[in-house]
C-alpha cells in the first residue's frame, strides 16, 4: 500500500461547523463523537460514584437520603455500562475497523450516523428522570421486578423507553460492524489474517445482535405489567418475578462479555507491539474468543444461585461458568508468553495493558470463586461481587480503552501525547484503582451487602479507605482529559510518524498520521 493510493479524486475534507457532526457519514467523525459521548458519560457516572463513596465514607446518613442513594447506584451502573464502556468500544470500532481491514468506511455510513445520534437522545431521556417527580430509577441497574414494576417510581416508563432507544442504536451499530467486516475487507484480508481487534469486535457484534433484542423484550414485559395489567412477573396471575431475572441475565451475562471482548483485542495489539514480537497463538486467541462467546449464552444463572432453583440447574450453571476460565486462561497465557523473551518497553499504552492483564486476572479469579455455587451463597450481593466486577470493568474494560486511546491517538490526530503526563496518569490510576477496589473484597467477605447507604461499624475503616481511593482514581482522570485535550485541540506535542511506534503491525500504520479524512478509497493489497 503506497501513499499514492490515497490521492483519489474523492479528496474533500470535512465540512465546517456543527453541521459536520450532525450530517457526517464519515467513520472517523462518528468514532470521535462516540468517544466524546463515552467520556462525558464516564464523568457523569463517575460523579455519581463520588456521591456513593462520599455517603459511604463513614457510617450513618450524611449527604443523601436512602432513596436518592439508590438512584445514584442505579444510574451509576446504567450510565457506566451503557453510556461509557459500550459507546467507547463502538467509537473505537468506528475509528479502527475500517482502517484495519482496508475499507474506506463502514458499510452503511448513514445508518452509522443514525445509530450514534440516537444515543444522546436516549441518555438525555434517562438523565431527565433524575428531575422527575418521584426521582430516577432506584431499583439497581439489574432492575428486578417487582421492585421495578409495581413498586417503581413513575419515571420507570421513561427508563424503559430510553433502554429501547439504546437497544435500537446498539443493534444497528452492531449490524453495521458485522457487515463491514464480512463485506468490506481488502482483497487478501482473509478471516484468519484479520487483526484481533476486528475479530473480537465481530464476535462482540454478534453477541449484541443476539441479546439486545432480549433486553428489549424484558423491558417490554415490564411496561406491560406496569401499565397494561399483564402478569409476567406476578405470581397472582401465574407469572414469576424470577422470570424477569432469567430474561435479564440471558441478556446480562453476554453483555459483560460485550464489555470485555474488544478489550482483549486491544490488549493483544498493544502487548505485541511493545514486546516487539508477534502475538503468541493468534489462532488460539480467535478460538478462545469464540468459545467465550458461545459459553456466555449458557451461564446466565450464575447471577441467580440464591434465587431458589432446582439443584440440577445450579450444578449445570456452576460447571458451565467454571469452564469459561479455560478459554480466558488461554488468552492470559498467550499474552504472558508474548511478553516472554520479548524486548519490552513501557510506554503508557503498554503500562495500561500490563495492568489490564494483571488486574483483569484478579477479577477473573474472583469471578471463578463466585462461580462456585455453594460458596456464592456467602458472596452473593456483597461487596465481594462489587469488587469482582469493578476489577474486570475498571482496570479491565476502562483501562483497555485508555490504553487504546494512548496507542492510537497519534494516528488520529498526528501528534504524540505527553508521555510524562501519561505515566503520571497511569501510576495514579493504578494506585487509585487498587486502593478503591481491593479492600472491597475484604468488606464483602466480612459480610457487607451491596446497595446499602449505611452500614454496621465493623466495615467503617475499609470503607473510608475505599472512598479515599475512589477520589484519587477519579481526579487522576483529569490528567488524562488534559493530556488528550492538549494533544488534539491544543496542538502541542511532537509530530507523529506514520508508524508512530516501533514497527507495529496492521494496515492503520501504513497511512499517514493523522489519518486522512478518507482512507483506502482504493483497497490496499494484503498478502
Amino acid at each position: 500500500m503506497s501513499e499514492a493510493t490515497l490521492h483519489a479524486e474523492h479528496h474533500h475534507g470535512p465540512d465546517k461547523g456543527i453541521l459536520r457532526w450532525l450530517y457526517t457519514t464519515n467513520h472517523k467523525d462518528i468514532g470521535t463523537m462516540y468517544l466524546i459521548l463515552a467520556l462525558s458519560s464516564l464523568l457523569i457516572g463517575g460523579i455519581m460514584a463520588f456521591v456513593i463513596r462520599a455517603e459511604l465514607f463513614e457510617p450513618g446518613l450524611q449527604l443523601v437520603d436512602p432513596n436518592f442513594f439508590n438512584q445514584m447506584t442505579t444510574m451509576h451502573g446504567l450510565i457506566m455500562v451503557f453510556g461509557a464502556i459500550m459507546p467507547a468500544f463502538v467509537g473505537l470500532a468506528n475509528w479502527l475497523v475500517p482502517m484495519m481491514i482496508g475499507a474506506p468506511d463502514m458499510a452503511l455510513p448513514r445508518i452509522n450516523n443514525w445509530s450514534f445520534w440516537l444515543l444522546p437522545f436516549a441518555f438525555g431521556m434517562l438523565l431527565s428522570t433524575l428531575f422527575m417527580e418521584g426521582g430516577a430509577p432506584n431499583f439497581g441497574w439489574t432492575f428486578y421486578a417487582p421492585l421495578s414494576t409495581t413498586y417503581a417510581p413513575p419515571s420507570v416508563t421513561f427508563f424503559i423507553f430510553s433502554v429501547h432507544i439504546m437497544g435500537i442504536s446498539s443493534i444497528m451499530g452492531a449490524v453495521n460492524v458485522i457487515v463491514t467486516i464480512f463485506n468490506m475487507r481488502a482483497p487478501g484480508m482473509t478471516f484468519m489474517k484479520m487483526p484481533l481487534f476486528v475479530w473480537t469486535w465481530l464476535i462482540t457484534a454478534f453477541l449484541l445482535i443476539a441479546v439486545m433484542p432480549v433486553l428489549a423484550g424484558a423491558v417490554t414485559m415490564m411496561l406491560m405489567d406496569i401499565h397494561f395489567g399483564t402478569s409476567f412477573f406476578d405470581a397472582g396471575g401465574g407469572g414469576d418475578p424470577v422470570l424477569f431475572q432469567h430474561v435479564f441475565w440471558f441478556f446480562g451475562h453476554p453483555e459483560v462479555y460485550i464489555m470485555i471482548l474488544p478489550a482483549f483485542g486491544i490488549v493483544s495489539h498493544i502487548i505485541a507491539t511493545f514486546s516487539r514480537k508477534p502475538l503468541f497463538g493468534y489462532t488460539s486467541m480467535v478460538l478462545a474468543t469464540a468459545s467465550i462467546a458461545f459459553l456466555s449464552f449458557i451461564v446466565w444463572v450464575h447471577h441467580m444461585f440464591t434465587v431458589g432453583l432446582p439443584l440440577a440447574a445450579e450444578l449445570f450453571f456452576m460447571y458451565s461458568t467454571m469452564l469459561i476460565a479455560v478459554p480466558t486462561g488461554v488468552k492470559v497465557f498467550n499474552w504472558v508468553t508474548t511478553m516472554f523473551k520479548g524486548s519490552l518497553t513501557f510506554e503508557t499504552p503498554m503500562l495500561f495493558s500490563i495492568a489490564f492483564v494483571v488486574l483483569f486476572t484478579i477479577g477473573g479469579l474472583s469471578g471463578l470463586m463466585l462461580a462456585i455455587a455453594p460458596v456464592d451463597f456467602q458472596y452473593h450481593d456483597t461487596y465481594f461481587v462489587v469488587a469482582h466486577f469493578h476489577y474486570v470493568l475498571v482496570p479491565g474494560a476502562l483501562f483497555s480503552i485508555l490504553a487504546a486511546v494512548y496507542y492510537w491517538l497519534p494516528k488520529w490526530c498526528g501528534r504524540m501525547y505527553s508521555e510524562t503526563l501519561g505515566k503520571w496518569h497511569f501510576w495514579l490510576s493504578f494506585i487509585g484503582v487498587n486502593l478503591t477496589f481491593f479492600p472491597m473484597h475484604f468488606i464483602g467477605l466480612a459480610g457487607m451487602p451491596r446497595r446499602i447507604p449505611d452500614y454496621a461499624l465493623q466495615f467503617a475503616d475499609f470503607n473510608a479507605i475505599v472512598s479515599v481511593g475512589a477520589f484519587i482514581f477519579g481526579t487522576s482522570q483529569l490528567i488524562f482529559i488534559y493530556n488528550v485535550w492538549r494533544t488534539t485541540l491544543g496542538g502541542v506535542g511532537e509530530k507523529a510518524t506514520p508508524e508512530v511506534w516501533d514497527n507495529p503491525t496492521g494496515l492503520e500504520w501504513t497511512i499517514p498520521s493523522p489519518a486522512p479524512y478518507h482512507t483506502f478509497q482504493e483497497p490496499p493489497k494484503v498478502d
Partner: protein
Amino acid sequence: MNTPRYYVPARSHWPIIGAGAVFLTILSLARSIQESSSGEVSGLTLALTVVAGCAMLFMLFGWFGEVIKEGLQGYNSDQLKKSFRFSMGWFIFSEVMFFAGFFGALFYARMFAVPWLGGEGDKGVSNMLWEGFSAQWPLLTTPDMEKFPGATSVINAWKLPLINTALLVTSSFTLTFSHHALRAKDKQKTLLWLGLTLLLGFTFLVIQVYEYGHAMNDLGLTLNAGIYGSTFFMLTGFHGAHVTLGAIMLTVMFFRVKKDHFKPDDHFGFEASAWYWHFVDVVWLMLFVFVYVI
C-alpha cells in the same frame, strides 16, 4: 473480491432527522402511556404525537426515497448491494431473538412457574400460599382470581387460527410466485401474485382483529387474564404488528413494481420485503403450534 470504487455517500441530513423523529415518537408514546395511567393525556402530549408522526413520515419517505433514487441512478456498487443483503439478514436475526424472549417467557411459565404454584415440582411448596390452586395449561383459573380473573375458555385452534395459518402459508407461496414472475420479467403476473399476497395478508389481519374481539368479549381472555392472556396477547400482538409492517413493505413494493423500479437481477427492496414476510410466516407457525395447539 474485486471492489471497484467505493461509493461514499455524501453528508446527509436524514440520520439526524431520523434520530430526532424516533426520539419524538418514543417520547410521545412514553408520555401518553404514562399520563393515561394516571389520568388524562395532556394536550402537549397529543401535539407531540402529531409532530412525531409527521417527522417519522417525512423521514421515512425522504430517506428511503433518496436510497431508492440512488439505486435507480445506478450508484449502488455490487459491494453495497451485498451489504444491504447482509444487513437485512442480521436485522431479521435480531427480530428472531426478540421473539425468542417472549417464547422463552411462555415456556418458562408453562414448564416451571405454573406447575410450581400448583404444588408440583421443585418449588411445589409454593402452593402453601395459593391454597386451592392447581396447575393447568392453558391457565384459566389463576392463583389470584380477584386480581387476574382468568379467561372462561380457550381459543379453539382448529377454527380461525387454522384458517389464519392457511392464509399465511399460502401467502408465502404466492409471494414466491410473484418473485419468480419478477425474475421472468412478467410484470402483470408479478403484480397479480403480489396483490394476492397482500390480500391474504390483510385478510389475516382482519381475522386476527376479529379473533381478538371474540377473545376479549366472549372468552374473557384479556391482558389482565393472567399469564395465559399475557403471553397470548404479547406473542400474537407483536406478530400482528410485524405482519402489518411486512404488509406495508409489500404494499410499497407493489407500487414500485408498477413504477418499474426493479430489474430481474436487481430488486433488493423486493427481496428484503419477501424475506421479512417469510420470517413473519415462520414465527406464526411457531405461534400456532405453541400458543394455540399445544
